[in-house]
């Protein structure tokens, strides 16, 4: 929690100081981790798992994640890492497009890069570990279609347009619904719960026949839940989120949320670093990507995942 924030701050300070110092002779065994956000529960879990795996593999681990998902900060971090002369980069890009030039520099310096969770548009990336967001969303889509039994509209509340993760999650559910002939109401709330609350409230008022609401992240579905609850429709409208944050799991257990999609941040962190360790050892038969399966968590299996 606060410790992580201070670690992040300290790491940035240290890097800043080292930036003027040229190559660090011990850097050969160091990998740098640049996550999506240092305050996001999912990413904290992922990072912790990555760090543990790194230590087990005998690698030095440095975390240069910023507190906000910010491409500019990530680019700076990549540049710093290159200058430090690290052996490898594990990145969870904030944006599919923005890291371009910095990653090219990494390639030129011969530093292998493994991406986690969000893809970037570079073919030469050593490997990509992600929840297959599309497949995961399709799981959600199937769940919704099945539970609706063909009746009612579906309200999709998306994340920020242009972010691969958002597009994938929305796309998965959208396609499944369309295939089943269900009408979809399509809105974006930029990952914000108050926006989602407003959209849900307005759409529920505008359309009397909404049978389910899917939101691309849990805070948004919880915001929508408030609107549903206030309109007295709890239980009558299916609510499905994504990410399985603790608040969402608690809500599922309480019966206020129908389901959420659980990614496996532990496995993602572990797999990402294990791949990097293998690359650094010189192995060449590295899979181009590893898709981590997601799981639908609803009342039937929520107890497994609640800590």
């Amino acid at each position, binding site marked *: 929690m606060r410790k992580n924030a201070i670690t992040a701050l300290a790491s940035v300070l240290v890097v800043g100081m080292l930036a003027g110092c040229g190559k660090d002779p011990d850097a050969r065994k160091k990998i740098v981790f640049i996550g999506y956000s240092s*305050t996001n529960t999912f990413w904290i879990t992922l990072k912790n798992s990555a760090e543990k795996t790194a230590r087990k593999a005998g690698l030095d681990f440095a975390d240069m994640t910023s507190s906000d998902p910010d491409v500019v900060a990530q680019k700076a971090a990549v540049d710093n890492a290159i200058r430090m002369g690290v052996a490898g980069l594990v990145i969870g890009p904030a944006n599919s497009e923005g890291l371009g030039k910095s990653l090219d520099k990494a390639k030129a310096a011969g530093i292998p890069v493994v991406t986690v969770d969000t893809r970037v548009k570079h073919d030469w990336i050593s490997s990509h570990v992600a929840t297959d967001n599309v497949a995961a969303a399709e799981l959600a889509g199937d769940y919704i279609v099945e539970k609706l039994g063909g009746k009612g509209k579906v309200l999709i509340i998306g994340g920020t347009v242009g972010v691969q993760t958002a597009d994938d999650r929305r796309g998965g559910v959208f396609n499944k619904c369309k295939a089943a002939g269900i009408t979809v109401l399509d809105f974006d709330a930029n990952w914000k719960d108050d*926006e989602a609350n407003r959209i849900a409230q307005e759409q529920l008022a505008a359309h009397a026949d909404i049978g389910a609401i899917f939101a691309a992240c849990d805070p948004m579905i919880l915001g929508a839940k*408030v609107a549903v609850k206030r309109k007295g429709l709890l239980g009558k409208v299916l609510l499905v989120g994504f990410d399985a944050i603790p*608040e969402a799991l608690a809500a599922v257990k309480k019966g206020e949320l129908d389901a959420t999609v659980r990614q496996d941040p532990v496995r993602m962190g572990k797999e990402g670093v294990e791949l990097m360790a293998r690359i650094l050892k010189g192995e060449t038969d590295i899979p181009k990507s590893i898709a981590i399966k997601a799981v639908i968590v609803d009342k039937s299996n929520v107890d497994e995942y609640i800590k």
Partner: protein
Amino acid sequence: MIGDIRKQVIRSAESLAGLVAIVLFFVILSPSFRQWATLTDILEQSMELAILAAGTTLVLISGGLDLSVGSVMALCTCIAGSLLSGCQGQAVMSVAPAVALTLAAGLGIGLVNGITIKYTGVPAFIVTLGMMMIARGAALMLAAGRNMSDFSDAFLVLGGSHGYTVPLSITAAVIVVIALLLAMTRFGFNVYAIGGNEEVARLSGVPVKRYAIACYALGGLCAALAAIVQTSRFEFAKPNRGESWELMAIGAVVIGGTSLFGGSGGVGRTVIGVLIIKSLQTGLSHMGVGSYWQRILIGVVIILAVWIDRIQNRRRKT
């Protein structure tokens, strides 16, 4: 500005006419908008912004500007959230002291803003811009990895868990108190004076620094209160709340008819401004228009509102 009831009523009537026009527009064009439930929806969506904008009105009338209130809302959300969240079944403290502490935090940040602005000469724009980032950073730090939910029933009542009378009363109370303050007290009179011409006020014996700082403090208090209502309503706290709300609040104030430069205006008009924004958003949603277009249209409305106001002012002067 005060005491002239006629002029006040006319000005408010103009904004009210705008609101009615917008509502009628949507009532005609969108069948789903026509239900009574829509009106309550709009009210529910307006509460927090109204509280925030009431504080902003005060600051603007005094000739100040506070860009940090959205981030202060986020910070207060996290403060309240961490004090009240039920980790391991027990909150850190009970509702009343937690709420008091949160309000004190908002008030305190407002004081810091005001004192910095008035005693260093750094423009309000810059100081509150800096505070905006400081508060946001603090909110994120406070929230990192923390579970801020699972609040007690007593707290949830504030957000409307047992019906909307509670939050609506809180909102109404804030509006009424600030309105009375402005219209009926020495404090309000002097606030208008400072906003009208700070030097004249100073020369006439008004302790301008003290009053200006007090307005910033009250603005911060409103931000905290808005955060409490919102956190209670959503039943959990997140540090990314309130983003751009300072600008929405200013937009509501301006649409309502209060001048950005101070010295005139009122809370009643701000409330109308809030309702206009929220009605627009709701109406457009009912018509299937997405949030990106909504933003564009609200921006257009803000510019139009100020433009129309200027034209009217020019006509009045001749």
